[in-house]
């Protein structure tokens, strides 16, 4: 096992472990912090794939901005274990079933997927570098890219409209 593999297993364990902690920890603030750790682990995977741009954007956007907003809301509402409402039993069952279904679907797809012919290129692939990524996004996929940005714009307008109402 060389260093890259070691890092891969470490990051995977970190990602899965902290993702589990997100779901299981009682304190919501801890959940958010574990989620941030998860993002870090995923960014680490991106770096292993030499996709530095994706790694850093993942950090800036998710860990740096969205999670801050999550923390904001949670800290302001001051939610903790004492004030957390007891959920109903059937709700837990429903959640378990829904999650299980998702897992089933994912496993089924991944099982049939042809992943053998793709091998991850660690630290030598260059598709994740900003130059190639920019070329791909703005040449080949320019229409979907612009459409998705219009989607974001409409979401922003919607947020402003909702905020303005009262």
């Amino acid at each position, binding site marked *: 096992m060389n260093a890259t593999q070691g*890092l891969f297993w470490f990051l995977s364990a970190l990602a899965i472990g902290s993702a589990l902690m997100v779901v299981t920890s009682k304190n919501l603030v801890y959940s958010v912090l574990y989620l941030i750790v998860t993002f870090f682990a995923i960014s680490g995977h991106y770096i292993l794939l030499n996709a530095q741009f994706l790694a850093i954007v993942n950090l800036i956007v998710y860990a740096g901005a969205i999670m801050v907003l999550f923390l904001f809301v949670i800290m302001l509402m001051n939610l903790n274990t004492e004030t957390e409402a007891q959920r109903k039993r059937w709700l837990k069952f429903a959640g378990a079933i829904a999650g299980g279904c998702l897992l089933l679907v994912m496993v089924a797809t991944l099982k049939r997927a042809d992943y053998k012919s793709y091998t991850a290129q660690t630290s030598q692939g260059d598709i994740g570098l900003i130059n190639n990524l920019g070329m791909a996004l703005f040449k080949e996929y320019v229409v979907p890219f612009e459409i998705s940005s219009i989607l974001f714009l409409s979401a922003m307008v919607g947020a402003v409209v909702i905020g303005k109402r009262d």
Partner: protein
Amino acid sequence: MNPLLLAIDTETVIAKLVLIVIVISASLVIAMYETYAERKVAAFIQDRIGPNRAGPFGILQPLADGLKLFMKEEIIPATSNKFLFILGPCLAMLTAMMTSAIIPWGNKIEVFGRTVDLQIADVNIGILYVFGVVSMGVYGIMIGGWASNNKFSLLAAIRGASQIISYELAMGLSLIALLMLTGSLSLRTIVMQQMEPGHFWNIVYQPLGFLIFLVCAFAECNRTPFDLSEAENELNFGYHQEYSSMKLGFYLFAEYVNMFISSAIMATLFFGGYDMPFVNEAALSPNVAAAVGIAALMAKIIFFIFLFMWVRWTIPRFRYDQLMNLGWRGLIPLALANMLITGAVILWLHK
């Protein structure tokens, strides 16, 4: 030999480690003397003399301050969240120091027959790395403020965090225009371009971008006039109210390190980095050129640090709504306009 470190030999690792140690300790010493400079500048602007008892001109004052902070009693509030309470200042300091990794402190030097880059890591994503780390800096404030279990701290933390994420946007947008000009994210490439003969510093091409970046840098560093998160007279020192001893020291120190690093980044991006004007570095021997370059960069950094302090002792604090108005209604549209105009001009020139 593992594939990750395949291209790196032992000597490079040692050179990098030495460089890291030097850069980190230099930033810490500079941050230490920034506290001294801050007190002196404040005093001079207010027609006073400032600290002058410890050593000649009070030059040993930062050591005394540091010693005092170390000796103070360590207090962890009983109702606070202990782990997060300690994690807060650690994160603040960590993120402050991490940014120094990608700043080119000078050109190459030759030591023991080897050429050594005066930059810890010339990563492909360059300036984006700074943004990533800066956006992590919010957590130091938020976690510390929340873990203190104090309403003032929480309010200040939320103020500070929302301020930082608001101004990060304008900062990024103002930089996009610059990056369109340079076509590279790497700080070394950006400096190299500014050093080319016939090419001026980026401030000439991007004055508005620099202005926006400067204002945002003030806001990101929590400096006056944007120091709402540690407003002494409104929030009792803000998010680090419950902190004492060196944990408080780390928060204060991180602020000064941030100031140093953001000065370095501004100097690198807009003022030619280690480029000494009117001197042809290529004609000098590498080591002399590197020394000249480091001196030039340091002079620029010191000017910016002085600017930070000068502004702090001139302008009163913004009100919170003024702050948000300036960020969202002032700087972001301005930065967008700057970006559009720059793009248009670049297209027009290329035609």
